[in-house]
């Protein structure tokens, strides 16, 4: 039986269809990005977690140090400084920044499916790839500024609350001295210099006080037997020699990070964050759910990467180099220490910068393609 339109059922003239609204285009519109941003931003629990981790942890840590230093400056050192900076940026922000970025990516990649909105969006006729790609700028618009704010707080405190002197093996030395100024200062503080700074072939019999190497300790390697007690002039000469020997070490010490280092570190952290978000987005889109994807990303960052970074596995080194954390560690600014398995100068697995860049691009682009493909082909 064939149904025919009945008299009186005739539809009116069709309204014009907006043929140029680029509905089939794979590129998302600004409105799609804006509403996706709104959808993510209004997830209260997720946003609180993101803010707590990226901004809250550094703020609480540095705030406590500022407070303690203000209350008891002799007991508690300054809140900022170079060491604090490297520890926070290469440690907390690096590791947790990746994890929260991946969590946000996993959320953005899965909630449309799990909350039943994906089919509503598909029914609009909008390209599925555009629906997927809209999540990228929306998510990055959330996580990149948060990491920037957290990192900015770290930089500000570490610069403005930096110690006034450098700490060289427990010896507080004025910063910014020239070689001659350092030697003059060393001559003026001969006993402190000789008791704290390492030296080569500067045999001086000097009784160091408590807290250093102890009274009557002989400074220098292989001192001659029955070394006489030095005169003040001899002490000064020896201290100048020791200062000269430590000049290179002194040059590498900073009260606070340089602008260049802060810029490099900031870019490196944002790179890590961006890649973490993209990978999380792709993995969650592939799996269609958030929990397993988040757990997988945490395992990758906290367990697999530190192991792969430190252990050389024969015949599998190229596989190790393909791990994201190894590649991003390679791009870590050289002044930062190894932290949380996230990177540092002393990682054992070596690779070229080109390889590291290729690996990072492969992860970011590869997972984006996989996620977009899955969202384009899956049943809605």
């Amino acid at each position, binding site marked *: *039986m064939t149904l025919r339109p009945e008299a009186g059922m005739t539809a009116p003239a*069709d309204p014009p269809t907006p043929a140029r609204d680029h509905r089939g285009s794979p590129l998302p519109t600004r409105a799609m990005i804006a509403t996706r941003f709104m959808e993510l931003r209004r997830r209260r629990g997720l946003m609180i977690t993101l803010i707590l981790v990226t901004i809250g942890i550094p703020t609480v840590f540095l705030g406590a140090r500022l407070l303690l230093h203000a209350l008891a400056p002799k007991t508690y050192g300054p809140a900022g400084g170079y060491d604090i900076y490297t520890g926070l940026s290469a440690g907390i922000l690096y590791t947790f920044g990746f994890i929260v970025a991946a969590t946000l990516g996993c959320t953005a990649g899965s909630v449309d499916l799990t*909350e039943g*909105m994906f089919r509503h969006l598909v*029914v609009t*006729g909008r*390209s599925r790839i555009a629906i997927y790609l809209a999540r990228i700028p929306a998510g990055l618009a959330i996580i990149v500024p948060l990491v920037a704010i957290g990192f900015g707080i770290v930089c500000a405190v570490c610069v403005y609350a930096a110690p006034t002197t450098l700490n060289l093996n427990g010896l507080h030395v004025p910063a910014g001295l020239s070689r001659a100024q350092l030697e003059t200062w060393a001559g003026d503080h001969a006993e402190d210099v000789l008791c704290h700074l390492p030296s080569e072939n500067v045999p001086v019999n000097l009784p160091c006080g408590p807290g250093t190497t102890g009274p009557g300790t002989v400074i220098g390697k292989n001192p001659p037997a029955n070394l006489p007690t030095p005169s003040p002039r001899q002490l000064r000469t020896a201290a100048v020699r020791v200062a000269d020997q430590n000049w290179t070490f002194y040059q590498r010490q900073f009260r606070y990070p340089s602008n260049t280092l802060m810029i490099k570190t900031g870019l490196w952290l944002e790179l890590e964050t961006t890649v973490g978000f993209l990978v999380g987005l792709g993995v969650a889109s592939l799996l269609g759910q958030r929990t397993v994807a988040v757990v997988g990303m945490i395992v990758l960052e906290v367990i697999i990467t530190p192991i792969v970074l430190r252990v050389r596995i024969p015949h599998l080194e190229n596989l190790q180099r393909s791990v994201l954390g190894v590649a991003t560690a390679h791009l870590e600014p050289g002044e930062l220490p190894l932290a949380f398995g996230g990177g540092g100068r002393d990682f054992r697995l070596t690779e070229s910068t080109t390889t590291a860049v290729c690996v990072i691009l492969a992860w970011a682009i590869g997972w984006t393609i996989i996620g977009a493909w899955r969202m384009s082909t899956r049943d809605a």
Partner: protein
Amino acid sequence: MTATVAVGEGSEWAVETRGLTKRFGSNVAVSGVDLRIPRGCAFGYLGPNGAGKTTLIRVLLGLTQADAGSMWLLGQPVPQHRDLALARVGAIVDEPRFHAHLTGRQNLQVLAAAREPAARGRIEAALERVGILHRADDRVSKYSMGMRQRLGVAACLIGDPQLLILDEPMNGLDPAGMHEMRDMIRALVGEGRTVVLSSHLLDEVERTCDAVAIVDRGNVIRQGPISELLAGAAVTLQVDCSEPRRAGALLAETNLPVTVAIEENGLAVTLAGGEPRDVIAEIARILISGNISVWRLQLVQTSLESWFLQITSRLGED
């Protein structure tokens, strides 16, 4: 440069499928369906649970891919011109679910952003039309099932659709809500839109729709205007008489195309194929000539529900 294109210009069908097939492994959910839904009507798509109703809708909307066959929405071939076709289609598939942490209005904003820019301007009117404007700024997590159904319809309306496909839109609605939904569907049809209603609430479909298709085990087994379909269905003649058993025996001895069921106060005589007046007259004549007192002859029109049960295979299984 801007241009406009009339959707499905020249096509008399809102939905047309030819040999549409969808399989899930060895299970054929939609089997070679040929379906034609005229424009500007309310069309019921009926079938028992698991008959393939929702699967067909999902295939039509591009939510899942067909394994074989071809289809057109508003005259546009799908999936080739899916974006053009769906530009004027609104649909609810399964139960309407939304982002629970967003308000109803915000959910519609998300969906409007995926449509043309003008869609955002239709949000207020859509919310008002479905009667949830006063709750538009509440989170969807606080909505009842019925309110989510209404929000689902509002989500359809923001696209100013020429074709609405509603999958079980009456679910969760109270009687007043069902009445409002029915009125709204009729109003939408009155505006020249086509509404495809998938439901198992046959009474509602009969009241709302102009035409139906019956689907069972993935096949469309009947389709057409309800009045035409029921005209060809069996009707029941209720006979109140004395001596029902003897009356039944008298009718059974004849060659009349009837099926007789004996009841306490008479007979229920099923007449195959519509309302044959001659057969009714013959029944009366046989009973009276057999000295049986006939007190009442009443023709009971077949409802869509009873007709549906007659023709779907599930009845036979039961």
